Structures are given as C-alpha cells and as structure tokens.
C-alpha cells in the first residue's frame, strides 16, 4: 500500500501560507506530477511527504498510516533532489548502497525486518546500477560523472531500498534539453517497471504532460485542478490552468455575451462569435466573460467571424505561429507549415469550432461552459 493522501493540509512559514488546505490523493502506483510556477507550494507539498517539512494543519497519510509525526527516516520514502545531492566523498557504489546501510528490511516473507548482509547489499547495488547503465561507473566519485550520470546515480540510490513512494523534485532541470527529453522516456519506463507511486514536482508543463498519469496544477499554495494531462489541457477549470498549460499559451480575450438566433454568442470589439451553449445555467445577455481559444484551434476561414490583423510570423520549421491583433488584444494562431503563408499587415478571418471555445468568469476566473 503506497497511496499518498493530503487531507486539508496547510503549511505556514510564519505569516506566509505555502500550502493552503490541500486535499489530494495520489493513488497506489500512480505517476502524479505536481505542476505550477515557482512559489506555488509544490515543492513544499513534496517535502511534507518526505518529512523534511512539518504539517501545520490537516492530515498526511502514506498507505494506511498518518505520517504527520513520523520522522523522515522512518517513512520508507526515497527522494531525487534537483541538485541530485550525491555524497561527494563516496564512490557511486557507496552512494547507491547508502540507503541499505541504515535501515532494516523485510527480506524473508514472514521474518522480522533485519539488516541486509554485505552480499545482499552488493547484489542490490549491482542490480540497480545495471538497470540504469551505471555498472562501469561504480568505482567513480560523483565529481568524475556527467550531469546525466549523476542524475542516474541519484535514481539508483532512490530505487535500491525499494521504497513505498518515489519523490522527485525537478530532477531534470539541470540537464540539457536533449538529455532531458531522453530521461523523460527513461523515467516513464522506470515507473512502468517499478509500479511504485511517483510524486514528481516540476514547473515544466512538457514534463508534466509527457510523463504524468495525472497532473495536479497548483498556484499560490492552492490546488487548481487534478486530472489526466489531456483532460487538464482540454477542459481547464479556470483561467490560471488555461494560461499555464499549453505552449504557446491559450489566447484569452475579454468579451460580452450576446443572445443570437442560434443560441449564445460572444461579442468582442464589434465582432460576434458563436460559442457552444453553456451547459449549466444559460448566461444572461451582456454578461462579461473571458474567451479562451488555443492557438491550434484558430483557423483561417473566409467566412470567419473574427477579423485579426497579422503583426508577426514566427517560423518554427514544422509549424508557424502567427501573432495577430484582435480588437486590441494580442492572439496567437498556430498553423502548419503547409498552410498558405501570411504576411504582417494582412487581415485574417478567423474561426474556431464552438466546442473548442472556453469561457471563463472574469471575476472568479472559473470556467463557465
């Protein structure tokens, strides 16, 4: 059992509330990514799981056990730090062996936990090293390793004790872009192989989207939305999530609701755009809203209702980003490189599938449709 559950957990540092009434259940074996900008409380939440920070209010459970008052060393948790935090004075082998030296392990199915023998430790170290391709490096010190190798040593050290859950604090942020992409794949494979709970903290939405079973988006200490990556991307619960996930971010433009013959439309700068009828209560006429459309959902169409003037075009090889001015607001249109070229100064008629238009309340920032 290695479910990790926050129940109304708050963490305060003096006057500052780092985590505010967080309730989140990470399922057994799940790859959960805590995503948010710096200072959003995601690292503090992770450090509370590790036992490196105390819980101010609420309850934190690992498995069936409330761990609020359980010391870090007794939590059966492994963590990979952003800086890797390897012991610089020890060889790779000693680094990996370290978690096996202090604890007792239930080796026999029914026997009491005991210290591992030297042979058992060596066997486990070699296994972990082999699975991460570190066998040839076991005799080296961390200073003689590359960033990627150090990162793998940190992973091996986390794996070797077979913990109930892995915690990772931005483990890829010190790697170069190419290695980062490679390591993402390796981490997903590692998770599939170990079938252990992973809680992974990052500010990088690409990491979150590519690796997570579920993403928990946080901002200012509060949980904004939890769900599978695609669901969070497709139906952001509020403006923060809408703007934070997606690159380039979702276009968000203020407008007003108008009743049209077909149903609901939104007016901005003298132009009216049809949107999908709001499911809950219909919006009253003249309600202020914020309209959100992802750049890839805007298409050039001669019948398009929105007129936007092209200001710049960014070529990215496989696609291009067209930066336009729509009634005084900057918006981005994503086009494939096969589309007809556009030039600055040109006025585009844009349209979007009504189902791909998101509406948000400008006051509460919550989703309306």
């Amino acid at each position, binding site marked *: 059992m290695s479910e990790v559950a926050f129940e109304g957990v708050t963490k305060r540092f003096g006057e500052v509330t780092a985590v505010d009434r967080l309730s989140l259940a990470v399922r057994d074996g799940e790859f959960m990514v805590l995503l948010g900008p710096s200072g959003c409380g995601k690292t503090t939440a992770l450090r509370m799981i590790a036992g490196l920070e105390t819980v101010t209010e609420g309850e934190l459970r690992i498995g069936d056990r409330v761990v609020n008052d359980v010391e870090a*060393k007794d939590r059966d948790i492994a963590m990979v*730090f*952003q*800086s890797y935090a390897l*012991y610089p*004075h020890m060889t790779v082998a000693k680094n990996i062996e370290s978690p096996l*030296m*202090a604890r007792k392990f239930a080796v026999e199915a029914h026997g009491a936990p005991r210290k591992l023998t030297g042979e058992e430790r060596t066997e486990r170290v070699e296994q972990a090293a082999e699975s991460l391709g570190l066998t040839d490096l076991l005799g080296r010190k*961390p200073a003689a390793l590359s960033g990627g190798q150090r990162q793998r040593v940190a992973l091996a050290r986390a794996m070797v*004790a077979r913990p109930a859950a892995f915690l990772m604090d931005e483990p890829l942020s010190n790697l170069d872009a190419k290695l980062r992409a490679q390591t993402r794949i390796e981490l997903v494979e590692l998770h599939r192989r170990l079938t252990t709970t992973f809680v992974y903290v990052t500010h990088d939405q690409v990491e979150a989207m590519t690796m997570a079973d579920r993403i928990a988006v946080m901002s200012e200490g509060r949980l904004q939305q939890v769900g599978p990556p695609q669901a969070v991307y497709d139906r952001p619960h509020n403006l923060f999530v809408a703007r934070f996930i997606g690159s380039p971010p979702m276009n968000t433009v203020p407008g007003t609701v108008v009743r049209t013959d077909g149903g609901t439309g939104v007016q901005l700068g003298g132009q009216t755009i049809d949107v999908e009828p709001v499911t809950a209560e219909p919006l009253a006429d003249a309600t202020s809203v914020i309209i959100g459309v992802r750049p890839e959902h805007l298409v050039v169409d001669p019948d398009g209702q929105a007129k936007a003037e092209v200001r710049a075009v960014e070529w990215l090889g496989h696609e291009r980003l067209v930066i336009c001015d729509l009634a005084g607001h900057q918006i981005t249109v994503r086009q494939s490189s096969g589309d007809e070229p556009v030039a600055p100064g040109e006025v585009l008629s844009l349209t979007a599938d009504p189902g791909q238009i998101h509406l948000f309340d400008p006051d509460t920032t919550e989703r309306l449709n």
Partner: protein
Amino acid sequence: MSRRLKDSLTGYALLVPSAVIFVWFFFYPLYRLFVMGLYQQNRTGTAERWVGFSQYSDVLTGHQFTEGVRITFTYVLYTVPIGLVLGVLLAVAADRRLKGIKIFQAIFSSTIASSVAVASVIFFVLLNPQIGYFSQIQFFSLSHTDSALRGVALSSIWQNLGLTFVIVLAGLQAVPDEVQEAATLDGYGPVRRFFKVTLPLISPTLMFLAVVLVIFALQAFAQADILTLGGPLGSTETLVFKIFNSQQPLDQGTGAVMAIGLFGITLVVSLAQFLILDRRVHYGN
C-alpha cells in the same frame, strides 16, 4: 617578441612585488640567521669567530634544545586536539536557524578579538593561587612543574577557540542542505549523519585548522612569558621562549641555531600533516 614570451614576461613582472617582499623580509633574514648560526660572538658583541657547523650539531643535540622540543610538542598535544574538538562542538551547536543564534555565534567567536596578552592576563587572574576561580584545580596549577604547561595551554585553547569556531562554522554552512536531507531520507539519524556526511565534507577545513593550530602552538611564546616566565624550573620554556632568551651576544649563535631548528621542525611537521591528512581529506568537486 612572440606572444608566449610576452605572456611569461608579464607573468614574472606581476610576481616581482611579492618576490621583493619575500626576499627582503623572509629569505634574506633566514639566510642571515643561518649565517649567524655559524659564528660565535664575544661577550660584548664586538667580534665574532667562525665556529662552523659544529655549533649546529652541538646545539641541536644539546639538552636545552631537545628539552625545548619536548615541551613544545607536549604543548601542541595539549592545545590542538582539544581546541579542534571544542571548536567543532561549538560550531555544530551554533549551526542552526534559530532566532537570536547570531548572538551566540558572536559570543563564541569573540575570542578572535582578544590578543594573546589579553587572554594570558585573564587566565593569569583565573589561575591565581590566591584569588583565582580556578585556584583549586590542581590540574591547571601554574605553581607546579607537572601542571604549569597545562595551565598555559588552557589559555591558548580558549584564545584560539573563536578562530576554530568561525572557520568550522563557515565550513558547516558550506555543506549543502540537500545532501544532509538525502542522508536523512536514507535513514540516518543526526549523529550518524554527522560522521557519515558532515565530517567528511568539512575535512578540508579541519585539515587547514590542524595545520594552523600546530604552527601557532609551535610558535607559542607570549602565553608562557606572561603566565609563568617559563617557570617553574623551566617547565614551560617553549622553544621560542628559549630562543628569545638567547639575546646576550654570547648566546646569539645558539639562539640562531635553535631558530633554524624550529623552522626545520615546523616545515617537516606541516609537510607531514599535508601528506598524511591529504589522503583522508575530501576536496569536493
């Protein structure tokens, strides 16, 4: 002129100022000292006589020098290990994020600001047989030949504690928090963490301190001069004390030889420390 030649000329030019200072104030006096050791002066210092290396062999094997070496090394043993351990303990105690910890850090490091003379006078009073707080502690009594050196050492330990504390504290603060936290999550309690992670990571600092404190102790003079005048019965006459007392013209050759001897000892001890400790010290990345 080739680029390479120009570069090396620039390099030597930049070295000239420090070379001048070293030659003038260090190498030349050392050379003069060495030469002084080859001569003997008359009682009034008006004439000198070449005696050659026989003076070196006589003095360096003589009782005065070997006794000075014995006392000085005993003094090193009294001051350095205890001073280091106490400094580390104080630094570990003060290395935490608490309100008001700066006050303790300032108090613990305050002995840096006191001179040897001040420290000695403080302990002269503390150890005074009539009025001193420590007058009942025979272990540090300045009036007995077997304990006087410990009394002198006590004042040195106290005086050097601030320096040891400050440097060890800086070393501790350079140990990354994440490495400590990793050790915590690996299952180590505070004591094992200290020996497994902290101590190895501050070993370069401790190595530096060990060398510096040994050199301080080898050069100890003022403490003995103020507290005991070298007594009782010469039991606190360190090497430097004996050298200082060789100022009469008749003794100058002897003093010069002892000074060269002390230089040699300091050199050998420091080199040995580097060679022995270097293998056990970890210098990070």
